[in-house]
C-alpha cells in the first residue's frame, strides 16, 4: 500500500492530546490521549456511555472537541479535515444508507460524495466492492428490502469504496448472526493483512482479542488502559486453585491473603470462584510455593493450573463493579 509522505511507518496515524468533550454538564470524553500507529488493528473497548462513539465522531469532525487536539495522518483535523477525510472510511454506530435507493445507488452516491468521477472506472469499482461484500446479487434492490446483515455489509462496502488507509468500525457486528460476525472478523483480518489501519470499537471482547494487536479501554470518558494485547494478557497471568470443599477454599483464601499481607507481594490479587476454587493473579512459576503454603496448614489442593486471563476478564476487572475487582477486605470482613 502506498504510504503518504506525511506519515512514516512508526508515526501515529491517529493521535489525540487531552481530548475532551462536554455535553452540557456531562463529560463524555475526558482528557483522552490516544495513539494508533500505521498497520494497527486497534480495539476500542468500553461499556455503553464510555465515550467511544463520541471519540470516533470527533475524529471525523462530526463533533467539535471542547478542548484538546486531534491529528490524523499528521494533520490537524480542525484545519485540514478536507485533506483527511478522503483517506478514511468509517461506520459510525448503526449503518446508514438511503433506504429508497438500491445498494448500487447508495455506493454511487458515496462515490460522488467522496470525489470519485462518475465514469466507467467508478462503476467498475462499485461492482468490485459489491463482490467483496457479497452483495452483487442484490445490488439493484432497494436497501429498504435488505436484511440487517446485508445492510451492515453495504455499510462496510461504503467505508471501503475509496480504498482508504484508515478504517474506523464502530460496532460493525451489531445485530449480526454468528456467520455474519465471522465474516466481519475475517474481513477485518484481511484489512489488516492489506496494510490498512483499523480502529475497531466493539463489545465482543473475544473478537477484539482475536483480531486486534492493541487496545484502549475506556470508562466514563477516561482511558483506563492502552497497550499491546499480548502485554495485557501477560499482565493478566493467573492461577486457578481448586480445593475439595468450599470450607477448604475459604480457608485457603484467608491463608493466601495473610501471606500477601505478610510479604508475598507476588500475589497481586485473589478472587473466590465457583466449585470450591479460587483464582490468584500470580506468576505461574510460583505454583509450587502456593502448594507448599497451603500444605503447611494441612490444606491439600485438588487442582492447580495456569489460567491465562482473557481480554474479557481484564476488561471486567477494570470497568466492572467493586466485588469483581477482588476487594479482599470486603470478603474477609
Amino acid at each position: 500500500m502506498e504510504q503518504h509522505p506525511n506519515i512514516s511507518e512508526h508515526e501515529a496515524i491517529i493521535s489525540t492530546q487531552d481530548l475532551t468533550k462536554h455535553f452540557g454538564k456531562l463529560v463524555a470524553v475526558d482528557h483522552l490521549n490516544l495513539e494508533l500507529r500505521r498497520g494497527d488493528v486497534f480495539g476500542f473497548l468500553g461499556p455503553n456511555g464510555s465515550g467511544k462513539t463520541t471519540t470516533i465522531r470527533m475524529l471525523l469532525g462530526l463533533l467539535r472537541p471542547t478542548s484538546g487536539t486531534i491529528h490524523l495522518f499528521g494533520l490537524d483535523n480542525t484545519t485540514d479535515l478536507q485533506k483527511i477525510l478522503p483517506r478514511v472510511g468509517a461506520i459510525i454506530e448503526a449503518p446508514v444508507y438511503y433506504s429508497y435507493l438500491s445498494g448500487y445507488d447508495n455506493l454511487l452516491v458515496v462515490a460522488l460524495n467522496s470525489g470519485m468521477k462518475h465514469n466507467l472506472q467508478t462503476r467498475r469499482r462499485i461492482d468490485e466492492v459489491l463482490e467483496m461484500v457479497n452483495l452483487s446479487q442484490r445490488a439493484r434492490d432497494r436497501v429498504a428490502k435488505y436484511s440487517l446483515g446485508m445492510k451492515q455489509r453495504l455499510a462496510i462496502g461504503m467505508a471501503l469504496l475509496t480504498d482508504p488507509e484508515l478504517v474506523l468500525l464502530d460496532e460493525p457486528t451489531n445485530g449480526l448472526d454468528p456467520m455474519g460476525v465471522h465474516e466481519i472478523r475475517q474481513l477485518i483480518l484481511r484489512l489488516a493483512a492489506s496494510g490498512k489501519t483499523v480502529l475497531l470499537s466493539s463489545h465482543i471482547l473475544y473478537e477484539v482479542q482475536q483480531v486486534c494487536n492493541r487496545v484502549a479501554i475506556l470508562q466514563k470518558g477516561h482511558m483506563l488502559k492502552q497497550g499491546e494485547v499480548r502485554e495485557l494478557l501477560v499482565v493478566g497471568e493467573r492461577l486457578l486453585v481448586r480445593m475439595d470443599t468450599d470450607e477448604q477454599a475459604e480457608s485457603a483464601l484467608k491463608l493466601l491473603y495473610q501471606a500477601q499481607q505478610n510479604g508475598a507481594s507476588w500475589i497481586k490479587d485473589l478472587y473466590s470462584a465457583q466449585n470450591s476454587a479460587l483464582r490468584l493473579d500470580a506468576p505461574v512459576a510460583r505454583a509450587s510455593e502456593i502448594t507448599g503454603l497451603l500444605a503447611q496448614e494441612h490444606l491439600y489442593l485438588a487442582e492447580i493450573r495456569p489460567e491465562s486471563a482473557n481480554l474479557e476478564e481484564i476488561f471486567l476487572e477494570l470497568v466492572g463493579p467493586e466485588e469483581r475487582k477482588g476487594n479482599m477486605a470486603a470478603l474477609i470482613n
Partner: protein
Amino acid sequence: MAGTSQEIAPLPTPVATIEFGSSKYFATLWRLTRMELYKIRRRRYTIITGSIILGLLVLGLLIFGFYVFAQAQQPPSAFATQVCTSGNAVGNFTCTTPNYSQAQLVLMKQTSMQNMAAQLGLPGSLGLLFAILEGTVFLAIVLLGPLSGTEYTLGTVRLLFTRGPTRLQCVIAKLIASLITLAVFFILAIVIWTGLGMLLYALSGVPYSYTFGLFHAANAGQTVNATLLTGLIVLIFWFAFSTVAFFFGTLARSTAAAIGVAFGWYVFEGIVSTILALLSQLISSGPLHDLFQQIPTYLLSSNFSALIQNRANDTGGNNPATITDLHALLVIGGYFVILIGGSLLLTRRRDVTN
C-alpha cells in the same frame, strides 16, 4: 496479530482504478449538486409527487378545454350580455337582455370564444399556468421539503459530512439541486401545458395564429417579457418556500418539521394578510391603521404577489401593486439571506449527533 493462527489473505488490490475528480471548490460543488440531483430523481416520493402535481394541472386544463368546447357548441344567443341598471336602493339592480341583432350575437360569441381560447394558446396559456402555480406555491414544500430534514432523520448526514466536502458545500449543493429540480419541473409543466393547450385550442373553433397574435400587437415584446418574467418570479416564489422548508428541516433536523412548519408559515401569511386587511379597514386612520397596512408588505407571499401584479400592470393589465418592485426585491432578498444564511450557519457550527 493476537490469536490469529491461520494465514489470512489480504483484500484484493483494486482492479478498477479509483479515479478522483478535481478537488477544487466549484468542481466539488458541481459534483455534489449532480449527486443531489441523482438522489432526487431516484426518489419515488419526488417522482410521484411531481407526477401528481403535473397530472392535476393537466386535468385542470382538460376540464377547461372541454368547457371551452362545450361553449363553442352553444348558439350565439347564449352569449347575449345583459345590461343592468341600479334601482333606488343600494344593491338593487335591474338586469335586462336587449334585443340584439344576429350579427351582434355572433360578434359576442366570437369575442367570448376568443377570450376563452386565449387562455389555451400562447401567451395567455402561460399566464394562466403561472397564475395557478402562484396560487399553489405550497406544493413546493411538498415536493422538496424533505431535502434537508431527511438526511438527519435517516442519519445519512454523517455519511455526507465525513467524505471530504465541507458542510457548506453540501448545503449549497442541495439548494442548487433544489432550484434546478424546480426549473425542470416548471419547464415540463410549460411544455405539457402549452402543447395540450394548443391541442385543446382547436376545440374552440377560433382560428389559430401561429404568431400568437403577438406580432400584430402594439406591445408584443413587452407581453413576452412580462410573461417570461412572471414565470421566473413564480419559479423563485416556489424556490423561496422550498428554502423555508429547507431551513426548518435543518433547524429541527426533521422532515416533519420541514414540511409542517413551512406549510404553517404559508397558511399563517395568508391568514395574517386577511386579518390585517380587515383591521386596517375597521381602523381607517392613525398609527394602528398604518401599522396594519405596513406589516403585510414584509411578508414573503405579499412581495412575490406584488412583483407578479406589477408585471401584469406593465402590459396594461391590472393596477400596480401597493408594494414597489424595489421594496419587494429587498424584502425577498432579506428572506433569502436569513433562510440560506441561517441554514449555512446552523450546519457549519453544529455537532452532528444523528
